[in-house]
């Protein structure tokens, strides 16, 4: 038995069924037992059903040939590729629309949120109605509307609207535009870009340190941009500056060559961005409103210009209010991108859905969907938490 400390009150003897600790454990064991029993029951039924109906199980199918075509792919894919690759194509498509959606809705949402606080009555009213209109109607409805409008309002490929001396074409097949012909130097340019970003960050740190130490400012932003853009440009020049372009041209049914932004992608992105930016605008607005008026006055008293005051005083503080709700909006964009299935953009859910139909293995595939979204959600949360901690550190 435990040795009782000197001076402590003698332990009151309680019956075990009245001891809160024991009761707590019994309660927990009962609840966990019930949950486990439920899980056991469901899994048992499932296994029984699978056996009886001879439904195959396991993830072997991932290595088999998928056999279906996907309309919009970022990596090379053909019907001869495996299911695993088809699902990977879906994940990349989901990420593409989610990342672009996050960036664009942050920009648009911030503009609208700031616009709502504008002294200009008309501007602030328009921004207010924009917010109300977009957030009070289901996203799915916006997606249907935009998709129908794009596919019915734009002309067919043979009557496509062309611009920029027949280099850009807009039709109901999407927006075609020229791109450089693939060249080995592109890979190295990407490396250069990454190196440039790393260099710019290092430069910014160095500049900050120097300014803290000596007070001398350094134009780290413009220098950073120069480094980020300059390095890939240098690599391009060093690689012989290949200028060959692939131009879109009407050939047979469709345009060939160039790159294309498909209507499904456009409708999804536009819908996601407009819908989410309404929520972002509200977050930004309340973040700015949460700031005390004295902050901007104090910044002005210090002689900071309006831009500097915004960047050094107001924004860092508003961000602390803004970032947590923003994180959940970013998660929402990612999850809402799964509505793609309703308008035919080949995202993760669409790929998995076809895979379920072809293989009949619903359970494995649904597990894959959940695992994929969970890991994306968790990475976004982790990144935003990291960022939140970072900006929280500026508090003293």
């Amino acid at each position, binding site marked *: 038995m435990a040795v009782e400390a000197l001076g402590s009150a003698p332990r009151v003897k309680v019956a075990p069924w009245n001891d809160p600790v024991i009761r707590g454990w019994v309660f927990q064991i009962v609840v966990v037992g019930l949950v486990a029993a439920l899980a056991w029951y469901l899994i048992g039924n499932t296994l029984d*059903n699978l056996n009886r109906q001879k439904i195959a199980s396991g993830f072997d199918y991932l290595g088999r040939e998928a056999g279906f*075509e996907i309309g919009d792919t970022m990596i090379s894919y053909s019907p001869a590729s495996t299911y695993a690759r088809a699902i990977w194509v879906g994940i990349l498509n989901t990420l593409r629309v989610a990342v672009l959606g996050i960036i664009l809705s942050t920009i648009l949402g911030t503009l609208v949120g700031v616009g709502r606080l504008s002294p200009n009555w008309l501007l602030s009213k328009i921004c207010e109605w924009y917010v109300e209109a977009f957030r009070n109607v289901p996203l799915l409805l916006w997606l249907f509307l935009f998709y129908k409008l794009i596919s019915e309002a734009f002309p067919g490929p043979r009557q496509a609207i062309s611009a920029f001396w027949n280099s850009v074409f807009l039709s109901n097949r999407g927006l075609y535009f020229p791109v450089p012909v693939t060249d080995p130097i592109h890979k190295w340019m990407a490396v250069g870009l990454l190196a440039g970003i790393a260099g710019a960050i290092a430069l910014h740190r160095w500049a900050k340190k120097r300014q803290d130490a000596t007070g001398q400012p350094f134009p780290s932003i413009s220098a950073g941009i120069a480094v980020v853009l300059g390095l890939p440009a240098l690599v391009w020049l060093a690689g012989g500056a290949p200028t060959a372009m692939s131009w879109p041209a009407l050939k047979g049914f469709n345009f060939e060559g160039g790159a294309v932004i498909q*209507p499904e992608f456009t409708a999804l992105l536009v819908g996601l961005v407009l819908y989410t930016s309404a929520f972002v605008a509200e977050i930004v607005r309340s973040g700015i409103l949460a700031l005390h008026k004295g902050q901007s006055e104090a910044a002005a008293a210090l002689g900071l210009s309006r831009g500097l005051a915004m960047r050094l005083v107001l924004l860092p503080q508003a961000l602390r209010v803004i970032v947590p709700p923003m994180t959940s909006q970013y998660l929402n964009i990612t999850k809402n991108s799964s509505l793609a299935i309703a308008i*035919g953009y080949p995202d993760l859910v669409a790929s998995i859905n076809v895979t379920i139909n072809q293989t009949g293995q619903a359970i494995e595939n649904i597990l894959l969907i959940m695992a994929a979204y969970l890991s994306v959600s968790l990475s976004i949360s982790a990144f935003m938490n990291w960022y939140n901690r970072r900006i929280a550190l500026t508090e003293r």
Partner: protein
Amino acid sequence: MRKVMMVATAGIAAVVLGTAGTAYAGKELDAIKARGQLLCGVGTGTAGFHLANTQGKWVGLNVDVCRAVSAAIFGDADKVKYVPLTSQQRFTALQSGEVDMLSNNTTWTLTRDTALGFDFTGVTYYDGQGFMVPKKLGVKNAKELNGATVCVAPGTTTELNLADYFRANKMTFKPVVIEKVDEIRSAFFSGRCDVYTTDASSLAATRAANVPAPLTIEDFVILPEIISKEPLGPVVRHGDSQFADIVRWALFAMVEAEEYGITSKNVDEMLKSDNPTIKRILGTTPGMGKALGVADNWVYQIIKQVGNYGESFDRNVGPGSPLKIERGQNALWTKGGLQYAPPIR
């Protein structure tokens, strides 16, 4: 502990409420008879095959098969509850007992007949995958489709056949895949795709019933190529051969009746026929129904209330319908087609 009790109570309540719609399937046929209703899984809406009309009444070739089975079991073709299922839901719905049978344009394949635990009981319609294009594209056959954008509904063998066909002919295509049939059709008609592909019967149905107003049937052509074999027929679960037999022979009876010229109009006169085969079919000579486990006049009920295969075909998809599909492979074997019923004897 009380909380446990409360949770348990809530659980029980949920189960009680939930089981309101629960059905325990024992032996299929007994369960159906006890229920007094046949649960028939149909598609969500293809003109001519299974479609709820404006009064909410289901009509179509596949629906007639359900009605024939109901007529055989109950002597009444209307004791059917139609459960519209998407192509994803249909198999789990049948496996789990949500429906007794499927009659919804399901292609008979080896895996489905075996690994999924089903029995196909016959072929209602011999079909094959085809292509439809707007006439103004000037395409004459499928070999000219290189580079086309193709609208295709997911969830079937259609997608795989399509990819196989283009690969085999060294052509490329861009698919537009939308979950809902209505959406995929409207994408095609609005010009998002050059080609729409699905079973030829369904193409004809779409062309006849779904072309949006300013356009007409004449603006679209169905290409001559059929790129796959799609025998479509009713499906039941493994397990109750007696019910499977009834479903099988209900369809055969419709075909057999057409072969012997028995129609819903003349079936009452045919009862007086001296032809021994007709007497056996219509149950004037008893025995056949008993063997199958239904009333002896089962074929009479089917033909009287539903009609023979030819009548159903004409009414729903043939000349008597907007689809105007030729009998083709679905003609009787005596007329050069594939519809052949084993003798009722």
